[in-house]
């Protein structure tokens, strides 16, 4: 499958991974400098897993995500400036400053929303798949969630419903080995991917989630299966976050082993993919450097946009609470 991918497609994959990396590195700095209120959760280290899944979807396909929230819309093709403006709380933000980092959504690229509640958006993706099925529009939905959410009950309600109705949905578990400080293996009985067997749906474990091609191939197979009416799949991708759970978080306990960390840091998905593209003579170092430079400029532009944009008008606290203006008796 991956052998059929065009050069443009593979370079776009690298571009999106670099976008996530540089966007999140900038966001991390901005949190530390007080330029972003609150905190953010970066996808640094998980770019291959995010982009591999997003690019296996079509532009019109749906996606939901979680608190590790910037990579998903970026992976789906969302422009950076409105995302950055949202992180800062500006009127030009993708959610008009009402959502913030945890609740990014860009319906123009099928991003139906990230969620600050672990597991909470899995039923939303399942419902989007239900509407695809009933409206017969060929769209597929993908729910991103972590190893922590794999222990929420709504995942299993979703898998059961999607299984009986053969809904075109992919449950994509981003297993980065830790739910905040808690090692996944200490709170997870068995293997997450194996849980699919109970619902008689495919359960695939991608051991090397740092490899774009491996993630892409697994998700593409599930997408094609979903689109042809055969129903849902569960995919568990093993990966690692390079940063702390959230930026600025300082814990007294170092819950991650230093050797483990070093091992994973050596498996940087962007470096690995760059090496692959050069080795296979798909792209030159110069071409890849040019991508990096242009994304650097894009992120700089997004930052400038976030700084120069106005804050939202605070005069209507009810804006968009309902589809019609909300009248308060006064």
């Amino acid at each position: 499958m991956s052998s059929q991918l065009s050069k443009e497609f593979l370079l776009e994959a690298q571009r999106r991974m670099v976008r996530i990396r540089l966007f999140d590195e900038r966001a991390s700095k901005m949190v530390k400098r007080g330029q972003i209120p609150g905190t953010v959760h970066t996808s640094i280290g998980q770019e291959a897993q995010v982009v591999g899944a997003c690019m296996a979807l079509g532009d019109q396909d749906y996606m939901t995500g979680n608190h590790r929230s910037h990579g998903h819309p970026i992976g789906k093709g969302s422009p950076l400036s409105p995302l950055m403006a949202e992180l800062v709380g500006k009127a030009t933000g993708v959610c008009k400053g009402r959502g913030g980092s945890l609740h990014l959504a860009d319906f123009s690229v099928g991003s139906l929303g990230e969620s600050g509640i672990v597991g909470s958006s899995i039923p939303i993706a399942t419902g989007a798949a239900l509407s695809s099925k009933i409206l017969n529009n060929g769209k597929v939905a993908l729910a991103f969630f972590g190893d922590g959410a794999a222990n929420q009950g709504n995942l299993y309600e979703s898998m059961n419903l999607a299984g009986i109705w053969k809904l075109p949905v992919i449950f994509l578990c981003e297993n980065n080995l830790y739910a905040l400080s808690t090692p996944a293996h200490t709170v997870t009985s068995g293997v997450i991917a194996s849980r699919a067997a109970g619902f008689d749906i495919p359960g695939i474990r991608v051991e090397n989630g740092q490899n774009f091609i491996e993630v892409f191939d697994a998700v593409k197979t599930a997408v094609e299966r979903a689109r042809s009416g055969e129903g849902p799949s569960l995919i568990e991708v093993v990966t690692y976050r390079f940063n702390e759970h959230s930026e600025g978080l300082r814990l007294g306990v170092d819950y991650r082993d230093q050797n483990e960390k070093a091992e994973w840091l050596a498996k940087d998905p962007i470096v690995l993919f760059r090496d692959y593209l050069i080795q296979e003579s798909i792209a030159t170092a110069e071409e890849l450097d040019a991508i990096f430079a242009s994304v650097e400029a894009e992120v700089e532009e997004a930052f400038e946009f976030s700084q120069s944009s106005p804050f939202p008008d605070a005069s209507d606290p009810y804006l968009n609470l309902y589809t019609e203006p909300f009248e308060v008796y006064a």
Partner: protein
Amino acid sequence: MKSVMSYLGAIGAAQREAMDADERVIIIGEDVEANVYGTTGAGKARAAEGDFLQRYGKNRIRNTPISEEIIVGAAAGAAMTGLRPLVDLSYSSFTYLAMDQFVNQIAKNRFMFGGQASIPVVFRSAMFYGLNTGAHHSDRPYPMYMNVPGLKIITPASPSDAKGLLRSAIDCDDPVLIFEACPLWPMKEEVEEDEYWIPLGVGRTLREGTDITIVAISGAVPEAVAAAEELAKEGISAEVFDPRTLVPMDIEGIIKSVTKTGRLVVADPAHQTCSAASEISALVAEHAWDSLTAPIKRVTTPDTQIPFSPALEKHLYPNRLSIAAAARSVLKVSQPV
């Protein structure tokens, strides 16, 4: 043309109208194929003409597993992507299993995503109170949901209101929870057979009066009317007002009535603390203080769990006797104007 319909029959009629009018309307819920609760069929027999499964097919009549969280969440996701789901959650106490989806997704997504989402979905549930079903089935939980901005809450108290309000709810682009009172299920009256819509946020005066306003909610409405009839025999002229929808609330209609009568009793089958009655009382105290000639009185269900035994349950809810007694006590302490 009008015909006699029960409260439950009127709900079925509104569902059929909406299903006929718009292909995007689907019904999701437990036991909806078999018409167990009597709103997805024409008669008792599966083969009866008008049975929803026969009329609309399995693609639009979706029998679900007993999994409230995914029923509610999937309906929300479907509503965000082009369908207009009508969800039958049967008992109101089952809504709690889906609380995360109601509070964190359905109520918040449109606001939080800057208006990108609209969520046209209706959640029906029935309050089986007063029927000896015990503590797990007797809940009247609408006040809990009134405290969640982003939801609309309706509580029809007659067959005509049930049909017109449910139709408006289905055609509304926002999420609506409709709480149906089982004690009203058998209530029958002449109902317009053609399509009609009752706007959300507009109450109804059931009986005009000059001495006291009784605002009544859901199953307390017919009890308030009976209380007013009793009071009339004593020469007390009570006005009965049903807000019909709690979010949005027709507070103007309530204040207009209180301005006329100067006295207010609110009858609400919910538990007292933070009830709809509490909110209405507060709004009237804030906005119509000058018109009041006596303290406001709430007639609600005490803040205790609902017991099973018939000897213990029935008298807990507002009834004609307790509502009339409250009205008399308000009139007794009333100051001369």
